[in-house]
């Protein structure tokens, strides 16, 4: 049975469309990862599902019943949400955070709610801190409490809105472990995340959002190993890249080289490879192409799937491979020695030299 069905869902702010035509059926026990570039409406979709930001068109069904403003407060009890910024109630301790909903909304007795809360805190490893206040906890601990709070409401579905995005890298693991266990236990979940490995590992199904819609969906295998559509391929294969436009011969080459170095540093590129990338960028761009053509563009990218680095330089002009024209000058030798392969293409009146490592 479908727990959540989205029918032609649409969200727009005045004339600006965030997404439209989103159709999806989520069955009980399914774990759906929602991925995609920033600003493609992943979080907005989640918030439209539980009416925090109601959709401007289309319908949401929860267990076959159409959700509207009248029944949303009741529906939300079964549909928990975990926020990027935790949203723990700062005036209540951990126990209070877990019991306020069950006591006030589900009309449970205090002792019953507390006993249930304690069980859940054990599940997320926070039983020891039942009487700590949110400000006394680390980010990871707060997020685990927030998850337990959803469970305390006996939610049937949990919506995760970037649950690890505001966490320190050192705290990622503890929160992921909790979510992973939850996924294994058969909880129905929608998870918006930027952690690709995590998205792949926990999900039965992956939604890729782009182009103002649900662009491509499939099993983790489909999306991560064999993306069908171009945008998905771009996103999955070349997530990380650095581009730089050179306008004339006197450009700020130190800034460009700094950019390359920064890119390598941010993505923890192996030191040896980072050194070679910088060498190629310096020789190819600074000493060869910028000298002859002035205007050109540089793109350094890393494909996580193929595990290789490519450095591409594009320059306008007649079809000519500058490396061959110059011949065996020192910069050219350095470039060819540093790269695994160097090839020249001529597409749409643009010469493209691609160096692969």
């Amino acid at each position: 049975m479908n727990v959540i069905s989205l029918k032609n869902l649409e969200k727009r702010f005045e004339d600006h469309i965030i997404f439209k035509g989103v159709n999806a059926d989520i069955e009980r026990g399914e774990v759906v990862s929602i991925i995609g570039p920033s600003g493609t409406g992943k979080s907005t979709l989640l918030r439209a599902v539980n009416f925090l930001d109601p959709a401007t068109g289309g319908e949401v069904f929860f267990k076959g019943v159409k959700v509207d403003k009248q029944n949303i407060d009741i529906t939300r009890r079964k549909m928990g949400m975990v926020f990027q910024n935790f949203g723990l109630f700062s005036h209540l301790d951990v126990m209070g955070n877990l019991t306020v909903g069950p006591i006030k909304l589900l009309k449970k007795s205090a002792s019953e709610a507390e006993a249930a809360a304690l069980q859940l805190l054990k599940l997320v490893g926070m039983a020891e801190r039942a009487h700590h206040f949110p400000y006394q906890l680390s980010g990871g601990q707060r997020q685990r409490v927030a998850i337990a709070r959803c469970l305390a409401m006996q939610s049937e579905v949990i919506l995760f809105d970037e649950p690890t995005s505001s966490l320190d890298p050192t705290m990622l693991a503890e929160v992921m472990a909790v979510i992973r266990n939850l996924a294994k236990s058969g909880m129905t979940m929608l998870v918006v995340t930027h952690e690709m490995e995590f998205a792949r590992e926990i999900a039965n199904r992956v939604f890729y959002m782009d182009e103002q819609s649900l662009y491509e969906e499939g099993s983790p295998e489909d999306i991560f190993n064999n993306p069908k559509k171009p945008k998905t391929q771009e996103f999955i294969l070349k997530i990380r890249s650095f581009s730089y436009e050179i306008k004339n011969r006197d450009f700020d080459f130190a800034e460009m080289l700094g950019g390359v170095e920064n890119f390598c540093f941010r993505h923890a590129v192996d030191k040896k490879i980072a050194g070679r990338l910088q060498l190629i960028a310096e020789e190819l761009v600074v000493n060869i192409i910028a000298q002859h053509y002035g205007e050109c563009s540089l793109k350094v990218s890393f494909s996580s799937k193929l595990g290789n680095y490519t450095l591409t330089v594009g320059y306008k002009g007649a079809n000519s491979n500058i490396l061959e024209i110059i011949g065996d000058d020192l910069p050219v030798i350095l470039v060819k020695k540093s790269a695994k392969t160097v090839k020249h293409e001529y597409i749409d009146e643009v010469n493209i030299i691609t160096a692969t490592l």
Partner: protein
Amino acid sequence: MCAENRYNFYLIKAAIFLAVLSWLVIPVYASDNVSDNDSGSQTSYKSLYGKKIGVLIGSSGDDIAISALNAEVFYYLDILSGIEDVRKGRIDGFIEDLSVARVIADDVANRDLGVVVIPAEFFKAPIGVMSLNQGIVDRFNAFLEIIKYDGILLDMQKRWFDNDLDTPMPDIVLTGDNGTLRVAICAMSMPFVYLGANSSFKGYSMELVLRFAAHFGLKVEFIDMDFSGLIPYIVSGKADLAVANISITEERKKSVIFTEPIFDDLAAVIVLKKVVRTAENDTFFNWLKEAVKRNLITDNRWQIIVKGLFVTIFIAVSSLFFGTIFAGLICCLLTRKNRYARRVAGLYCSLIYGTPAVVLLMISYYIIFDKISISNIAVAIAAFTMVEASTVAQNLRSAIETVDPVEIEAARSMGFTSIGAFLAVTLPQAVRKALPSYAFGFVELVKATAIVGFIAINDLTRASDIIRSRTYDAYFPILLVTLIYLIIMVISVWIFKIIAGKLNRGRAK
């Protein structure tokens, strides 16, 4: 936040300690300065010619000082500060009505003061009774003729103006049932109207009014207030007669009707006679003992302070209570999405915020509640409720705005309705955040109520004014009420601190 609070409380304690210490030291120090000053006794007004003379603002004293003495004039807000400056030698004399000057000079505390009479050729002040009702004035004038004729008036003048203030008030029994005469009085006008033993009113004008009432078979209801309140009271029809030492002037005649003069007063200058000072008077504790005896024990004057204290606390606590409820409603409007609701509430807040409390009190008394017969205290509570509501509402609104919107979303996403989320998450946090300013707002409120004397309520501040005007002690009554206000503040801050402590567990940041 907790730590910061504690810090504030310590700071306040220290400030109180310093304040009390310094105020207690000033009078002792100041009175030490006096002993060196000996300007001798001055018998003729001519010896004051061209000297520095103090006068009361708004009195005719400055005309007299210039026409009779060609003096350099200094203006004062009240007699007591003028007298203190005479003592300190800053001015050479202070002009007052002869009747008042005599009373002051006769007081045991003022043995160092003398009175120099200004001859009647320069100044004569006919004292009258004010009303707005020609019928009452006619009857009063007729009555005045009668007692002038049979000598009662002369006898009264001898009793009240030639003796000291302990002159007994004759028993005048009112048996009539021809209606009630509402009489506005300012019981700080010795020897015309003032407070005797056990807070009862006595004096020359008092006796005159009672005799008048007895003559015509009327009952009398007295309303005591500041001198400045008398004319508005008569003009607005809240009283039939006003008595005190009111000079008949052309200016006043424009708004009220005067009776024939009940007494012809002269002007006099209060001067420093000679230092009367004994060694035993020099210590602080003697000063204190003497002051307590004169200001509190004599005539059971402490009762005035105690009554005033209860009135002040009653007004402040009631205003806080109703103000808080009202503030909740205003805050409700202030946080509406509806722009007009917000504007109306915002306009109310800025209107109240921009109006001085005393003006608001006057407006409530003379305009809003003019035709409705409720007690003056209820009017004061209504006015301060309006003030308190605007500040508490603003305070609560900004506290509500500090609550993290994610927490409210989290509550909504659990299934709380918007009202449910407000009650479970927003309000508890906002109350915690608003509490410190709420506590200090209450302290401000207590202090602000000091102006209710304007509408004839005898609160704590006015109690001190009444005692001061009776004993001519410049320091002690003020010091005493200051101390009481400080104690009220410390106690209320302490109570709020306990409440805050109970609520404040687990505040982030």
